């Protein structure tokens, strides 16, 4: 396994004197193999971005371990050669005083100093075209001169230039229009066949469904269900997964109201402690209480 999380927990201290705590991530275990897209789904505040930041070494887990190639995941240049993240709000990821070409030049300086200028310029243009940006239209511009979708694609191009092995993509397609979004998803699908592993964080179930081999549903920091995408979406076992699926707007159907949550498979099978493996690789948590 390339990336592995074992019983990862993250507790934040909040309030003036750190008197209160929030458990943002609770006992989460999963892995991502090379060439695999794993999608992480859940409502806002469910801990998706916190998990992404932990994996990227931007914050330290309170409990459990995160390893990459068997070594602890730690922020640093070596780690970032292999692992990069792209986040939700593209405006916050760019330094507003640098034009796009400067941003790419800085990547060369830190990660690929040996590449000749001319070749680097060509790589930049290829990466931009891969994300369907016209290099002449974006290279000379400051971040505020680009639209939200253009910026987001610029970030993806930047990650591609690093030739990384794992991409943590946190809601990267939420601001893209439908056709660009498909282009970006198809691009990720292509990179995956070349061995890139992707943790695809999204709240859009249809995109996760399109791209991911495996799906993890997160709620209040804990995994409620995970398994092969077709099983999780085709045969959702947890009432919460069913509720999410019913809220998805569909093109040719009316918006369904939440259906009867149904029974708790976990209890019916008399399971206890951890997740129940209902089918090969398809795990589900108890629906009745968050603690059992």
């Amino acid at each position: 396994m390339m990336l592995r999380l074992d019983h990862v927990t993250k507790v934040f201290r909040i309030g003036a004197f750190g008197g209160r705590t929030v458990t943002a991530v609770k006992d989460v275990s999963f892995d991502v193999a090379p060439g695999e897209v794993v999608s992480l789904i859940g409502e806002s505040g469910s801990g998706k971005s916190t998990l992404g930041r932990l994996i990227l070494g931007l914050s330290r887990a309170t409990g459990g371990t995160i390893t990459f190639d068997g070594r602890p995941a730690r922020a640093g240049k070596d780690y970032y050669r292999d692992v990069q993240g792209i986040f939700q709000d593209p405006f916050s990821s760019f330094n507003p005083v640098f034009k796009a070409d400067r941003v790419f030049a800085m990547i060369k300086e830190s990660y690929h100093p040996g590449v000749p200028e001319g070749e680097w310029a060509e790589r930049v243009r290829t990466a931009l075209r891969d994300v369907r940006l016209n290099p002449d239209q974006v290279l000379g511009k400051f971040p505020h001169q680009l639209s939200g979708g253009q910026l987001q694609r610029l970030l993806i191009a930047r990650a591609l230039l690093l030739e990384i092995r794992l991409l943590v993509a946190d809601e990267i397609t939420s601001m893209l229009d439908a056709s660009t979004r498909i282009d970006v998803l198809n691009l990720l699908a292509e990179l995956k066949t070349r061995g890139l592993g992707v943790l695809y964080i999204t709240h859009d179930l249809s995109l996760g469904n399109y791209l991911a081999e495996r799906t993890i549903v997160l709620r209040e920091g804990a995994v409620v269900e995970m398994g092969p995408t077709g099983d999780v979406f085709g045969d959702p076992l947890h009432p919460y997964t069913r509720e999410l699926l019913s809220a998805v707007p569909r093109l040719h159907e009316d918006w369904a109201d939440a259906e009867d949550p149904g029974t708790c498979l976990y209890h019916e099978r008399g399971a206890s402690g951890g997740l129940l493996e209902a089918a090969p690789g398809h795990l589900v948590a108890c629906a009745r209480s968050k603690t059992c």
Partner: protein
Amino acid sequence: MSLQVSELRVHYRTLRGDVRALDGMSFELGDGEILGLVGESGCGKSTLGKSLIRMDGRMRHVGGRVVLDGRELPIADDRAMNDFRFKEVSLIPQYAMSALNPTRKIRRMVGELLRSRGAALDAAELERRMDQVGLPREVLDRYPIELSGGMKQRMVMVISTLLDPSLLIADEVTSALDVSTQKAVARALLGFRDSGYVKSMIFVTHDIALTHHIADTIMVMYAGRLAEKAPADALVKAPRHPYTRLLVDSLPEVGVRYAERRLEGIAGSPPSLLDPPPGCRFRARCPLAGDECAEEPPVAEVAPGHHVACWKA
């Protein structure tokens, strides 16, 4: 007619010349109408929203008019527009959630905002509207950072509509929300219209399925111009513009197993708005393009309320 936009041209000044972000947009919006606005990223949706409320320093009103409820909006005059902002037109910008002032508790922020508009805070009304969108009252005594994305978004919605503007422009307000919150926010927007807090609305989004559920009419923009505008159902089920057709075909759906099957995007990218080519702007990417497309297609009404700018529609 609540809003009439005719031949609107708005450019951004840059060192390399003008970016023609809106290049002759015309459309109308009826009383009580919710207009869904979609289009490729960079086509000018946010520019349209900004033009109707506040142009930034680099924006230039080059031509065209905007009339709201029979009065012309002085969009080029930042000062004169003050009489209209919040009261007549209100905008919830893209990334509004991250724009809330982090150092103020919500209650204080709302008070300050209203005072700057010369209005007093009607606490009862504020609370009633918060109830309506499912926000607990203690939210008022919290800092923005202590709210979830969906809560912030609903709070921004309530604040932007407190003075009952005639027109509300909501720019990708649901894009960052999970499906259940998205549904709640979309329904809250419908409620605002039904309760008469806003008369009409422009709902900018990339989610065509979502806009189909809440909009009466959907307008598709391409490279600074109108491509197609039609009743929501017609636009989704029987689109006439080649761009709209490709767009609708590129939507992934849940409940479908894709495995190795891939949907297709639209090859190529939109033309540069610095110096757009003559003729139909979609020409270089259009599978139906022919010789006549070297000339700009006019916007034609092909069925009642169904407008298309394409020679072959």
